[in-house]
């Protein structure tokens, strides 16, 4: 299309010839219109700078000759560069030529210069066709004419109109930028939401897997052995009953039965006497509660009744249940041992400690108990020891953090008793933690009954609470400070 004859075949030749003719037409027009620039010279006297008009006329004639010659000899379509040069020349021609006249009469000289410049537009039309560069050239010609004739008005108009155009363009750019930004943000948000949803999903899957594993493990480790044992015809024993009870508790926790989540329910619902066991005093009072107190022995180790009464109704009155358990209802006479109780309806120390073990085991504490109890210390001492033990274990739950194992060691008889509670949890620094603070009340109560409590702790290495009764003669006992917190002793 650039006008190389040799490269075109016969049908292309027609096109090229037509282009050449159009180019020559512009050339004719340029040559013909050149004569107009001579006209201002005839009003030589009325011009402000006649020599400028002279110069313009000469330049215009020369340019027209050059242009026409190029248009005539050009091959194919009118050259864009030629047209551009022509436009630039015309702009200069109008700008310079208008200076020849006095400011108020510029229109006169421009009337003659316009025909010459109009040809330039025609050249743009032929060479450029429809397009931005063509439009810019035409606008440049128009602006040049306007500037030449009315410079003040044009400047004012131009700057204002340019303002409109600029605002339009700038707004368009800003809007485009903001839209791109919002799009990117929305995309990023979307991505984040998808990733988050995926993470939540993965988390849920992991949690569900974990729960399944826990359930699997609980069933495998705690329920199945009990069921297997019974299925194999194993002898029901107090240990089996205890394991079965804990298994049921664990199963309830797995299926989220609220009864499995509240340890108290187990005691209340299974053996009526457990409820008093949670109070620190642990003394079954006279009357009905005394009956339930001994009934609580049913579920406990080394106590009467439950050894043989797998089928006995839970919650039946204590002594009665013990009687039926030993006497009737079981095909073979199962191992049932009636241990000696304290005086009358008193609860044995071993039963009290077993209840403590059960309570805390059911609460999820990994308790490793050793109960070697040969006799019964006096009742107030038993109560004080049990309360202090509860407090020590409660402190483990509250303060030790995640503990692997807590050992509860109880050994002794009627005239001496040793209780050691040992955990390997967080521990504390004895230098910074003040004993007491409302918690050491039951420790002091034991001291009042002639016992002694030693708490040794090191940060990070757990706590060891040694409770002994009576207080050993050697070694300094804790300084008695009854005046410091008399309220706690009550």
């Amino acid at each position, binding site marked *: 299309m650039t006008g190389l004859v040799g490269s075109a075949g016969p049908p292309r030749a027609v096109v090229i010839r037509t282009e050449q003719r159009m180019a020559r037409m512009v050339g004719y027009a340029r040559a013909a219109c050149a004569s107009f620039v001579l006209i201002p010279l005839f009003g030589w006297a009325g011009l402000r700078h006649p020599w400028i008009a002279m110069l313009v006329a000469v330049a215009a004639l020369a340019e027209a000759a050059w242009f026409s010659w190029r248009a005539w000899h050009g091959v194919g379509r009118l050259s864009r560069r030629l047209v551009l040069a022509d436009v630039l020349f015309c702009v200069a021609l109008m700008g310079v030529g208008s200076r020849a006249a006095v400011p108020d009469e510029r229109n006169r000289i421009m009337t003659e210069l316009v025909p010459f410049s109009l040809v330039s537009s025609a050249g743009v039309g032929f060479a450029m066709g429809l397009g931005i560069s063509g439009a810019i050239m035409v606008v440049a010609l128009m602006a040049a004419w306007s500037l030449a004739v009315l410079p003040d008005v044009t400047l004012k108009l131009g700057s204002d109109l340019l303002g409109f155009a600029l605002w339009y363009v700038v707004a368009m750019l800003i809007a485009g930028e903001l839209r791109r930004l919002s799009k990117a943000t929305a995309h990023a948000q979307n991505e984040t939401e998808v990733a988050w949803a995926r993470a939540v999903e993965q988390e849920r899957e992991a949690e569900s897997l974990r729960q399944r594993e826990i359930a699997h*493990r609980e069933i495998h480790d*705690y329920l199945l052995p009990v069921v*297997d044992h019974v299925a194999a015809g194993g002898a029901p024993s107090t240990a089996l009953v205890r394991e079965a009870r804990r298994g049921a508790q664990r199963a309830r926790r797995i299926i989220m039965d609220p009864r499995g989540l509240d340890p108290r329910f187990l005691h209340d619902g299974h053996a009526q006497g457990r409820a008093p066991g949670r109070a620190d005093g642990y003394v079954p009072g006279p009357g009905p509660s005394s009956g339930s107190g001994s009934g609580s022995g049913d579920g406990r180790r080394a106590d009467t009744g439950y*050894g043989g009464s797998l089928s006995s109704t839970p919650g039946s009155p204590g002594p009665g249940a013990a009687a039926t358990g030993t006497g009737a209802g079981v095909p073979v006479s199962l*191992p049932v041992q009636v241990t000696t109780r304290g005086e009358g309806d008193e609860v044995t120390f071993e039963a009290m400690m077993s209840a403590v073990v059960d309570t805390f085991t059911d609460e999820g504490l990994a308790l490793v108990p050793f109960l070697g109890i040969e006799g019964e210390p006096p009742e107030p001492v038993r109560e004080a020891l049990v309360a202090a033990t509860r407090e020590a274990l409660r402190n483990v739950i509250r303060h030790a953090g995640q503990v692997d*194992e807590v*050992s509860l*060691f109880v*050994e002794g008889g009627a005239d001496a008793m040793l209780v*050691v509670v040992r955990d390997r949890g967080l521990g504390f620094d004895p230098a910074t933690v003040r004993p007491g603070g409302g918690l050491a009340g039951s420790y002091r109560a034991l001291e009042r009954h002639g016992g002694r409590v030693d708490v040794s702790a090191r940060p990070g290495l757990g706590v060891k609470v040694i409770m002994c009764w009576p207080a050993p003669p050697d070694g300094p006992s804790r300084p008695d400070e009854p005046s410091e917190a008399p309220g706690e002793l009550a």
Partner: protein
Amino acid sequence: MTLPRPSGRGAGTTGRPVSVAIVEDHPITTESLAARFAGAGFSVLAPAPRLEDLDPAAAPDVVVCDLHLPGLSGAAAVAELHGRGLLVLATSGVATPDEVLDAIAARAHGFVDKAAPSHQFVPAVTAVAAGSYHVSTRLAGFLLEDSLRRPLSRNEIDNTERNLLRGLAQGDLLDELCAERDLSAPAAHHHLDRIFDAARRRRRLHRPSPREAEVMVLIGCRGLTYREAAREMNIRESVVADYLRTARTKYLASHPDAAPSIPPSTAAALWARELGFG
């Protein structure tokens, strides 16, 4: 808890890693244990869900053996492993004191509660691999209670050993007790050796002899009369009664929860079933 013994199997002395086999039918426990052992630098054999799955040719330094397995299980499994010349560390989440003590009698070198965190297994395996013993808090309680309840007439553990068990049952570690009581590692090992030996003899003393077991099965499980049992065993009826009485005495000694008035045939039935004779 490591007690290197001069005559140990040498896992610690030759410098090669301790090799451990895990016989356990619960994959979750196996996996977490194996990971912990591998993290401690042990070489862990392929897990065996049953004793029968353990490669008979394998010779790990220590076998961690669950006491409730499908197939051969409990003390019998421990005895089988000991018969192969392997050191056994027993573990269980639910074993009764009797089951644990039976495992010790079958020459397990220690017991760790399965509920114990897996990092407790590492020192236990290390101790057993070195030919020594691992006494967890719970095992110490079982051994102490056993020794208090069923004293031996001779070669009973002395007060030092009993106090050692007390300390362990109170949650102290052997290292701590050794430091506290100025006990050297070989001395501690000697005490543990005596404790385990006493536990084994104590247990054997309260096990039915083969003849007693036979009587228990015939009368307790198959429901024969004394006369029929006597004919079956080619002995006199009164001897059958003697065997059964002895069995009952042993049963009562090893089952403190049992009623002292239990008839001999009932005791025989319960015990035979418990021991898996029937």
